[in-house]
């Protein structure tokens, strides 16, 4: 279970979110600029905005406190058992795909590491790319590799910030389906940030609706995104 109570400020933008995410798969839904990426970066420990803010901030995962400003607790990104996959794949350009996926597996035995890399590449259907370089990949292939790299260390919390934007609908659905099964089997809590309502409906996830930095609703997609569903339906009928 992920519990968070955050207040952060970035220039004129204010983020204030307090919620408890108990579902295996949660979609943070909101328009561009709603604060989705800011929220995910804070959860990942990449931004210290919470630390410097006078207001309180607390994040805990399965009872383990990752951030608590009142007590000066801030767990480093690499020690949160948290992975973040962003829209920008951020693959290391000087390393092969194999080395990219293995980057977070430094302490493992080389045989176990190779097996783990192969497993992750199979999961994202990119085993044939193992010897390639990031600059030889398409946008969709790079996003698959970024996902494989994020999953390889075995995170407890997986944060996805619109990571499948370069994949076509069919490929994206297939990948999300495989990822959901993997996350369920491996008991990985997943938070997917998106502005695409179909992601929320297709995954049957719990939805947290974010608007202008505030959490305005939380619950099943059919309830929280009722208005969005009607808007999509109207749009389809008018075509």
């Amino acid at each position, binding site marked *: 279970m992920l519990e968070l109570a955050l207040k952060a400020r970035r220039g004129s933008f204010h983020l204030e979110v307090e919620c408890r995410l108990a579902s295996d798969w949660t979609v943070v839904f909101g328009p561009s600029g709603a604060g989705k990426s800011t929220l995910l970066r804070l959860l990942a420990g*990449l931004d210290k905005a919470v630390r410097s803010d006078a207001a309180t901030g607390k994040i805990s995962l399965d009872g383990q406190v990752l951030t608590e400003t009142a007590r000066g607790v801030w767990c480093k*990104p*690499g020690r949160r058992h*948290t992975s973040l996959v962003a829209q*920008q794949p951020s693959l*290391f350009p*000087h390393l092969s795909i194999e080395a990219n996926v293995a980057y*977070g597996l*430094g302490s493992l035995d080389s045989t176990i590491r190779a097996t783990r890399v192969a497993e992750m590449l199979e999961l994202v259907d990119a085993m044939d790319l193992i010897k390639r370089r990031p600059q030889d990949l398409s946008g969709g292939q790079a996003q698959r590799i970024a996902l494989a790299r994020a999953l390889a*260390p075995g995170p407890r919390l997986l944060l996805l910030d619109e990571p499948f934007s370069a994949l076509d609908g069919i490929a994206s659905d297939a990948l999300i389906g495989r990822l959901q099964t993997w996350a369920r089997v491996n008991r990985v809590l997943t938070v997917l940030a998106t502005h695409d309502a179909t992601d929320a409906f297709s995954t049957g996830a719990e939805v947290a609706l974010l608007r202008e930095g505030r959490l305005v609703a939380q619950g099943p997609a059919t309830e929280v995104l009722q208005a969005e569903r009607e808007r999509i339906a109207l749009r389809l009928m008018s075509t």
Partner: protein
Amino acid sequence: MDWQAFALTLRLASVTTAILLAVAIPLAALLVLGRSRWLAALEALAALPLVLPPTVLGFFLLVLLGPRTAIGRGIIALLGHPLAFSFDGLVVGSVIYSLPFAVQPLVAGFAAVQPNLVDAARLLGAGPAKIVFTLLVPLARRSLVAAAVLSFLHTVGEFGVVLMLGGDIPGSTRTLSIVLYNQVENFDYAAANRTATILLGLSVVALAALYSKGEKRGSARRA
């Protein structure tokens, strides 16, 4: 041709460059990745030799490393001799004098690495050392070569610090720049010309090698 001074100059430049890279890589990484407000002061301090007259720097080092200060007395007690007027003293002076020539290209190179790559490495559990040596250094290879070449050449050509701190002891502190100064002072222009040509040649060859490793000519215009 004073081959002893030539060999000493190359030795001094090589040792200085090796030490500078060992110091400048973590320092540049700290300046780029660090968040402390004190880093601006540290960066200014590292850049100070750029604007300080070499003789001024040499004078301060001469005093600092001599028996007049506690640091100097500590070094004498430790080594049994003062650092001033010795090869080791020249190395210390050269490292300080050439520090910005190593740090600044590395800072520029490290700062050019996309922050999202550093974030990705941090999320994958990389600590500062792993980020520096598996990400920043490989991605800023050209800056590393530039730092090494500039540090080497700057040390080869240094004069003021060497004269103030090392004097002119053959085989110990007499470098090519000092030899050239002596030759001119003795009106031996033929020998001075040969020494100056060697110094010039070293610089041109090293810089040509550095720039030939860069992007192919006109690649920016074609892009």
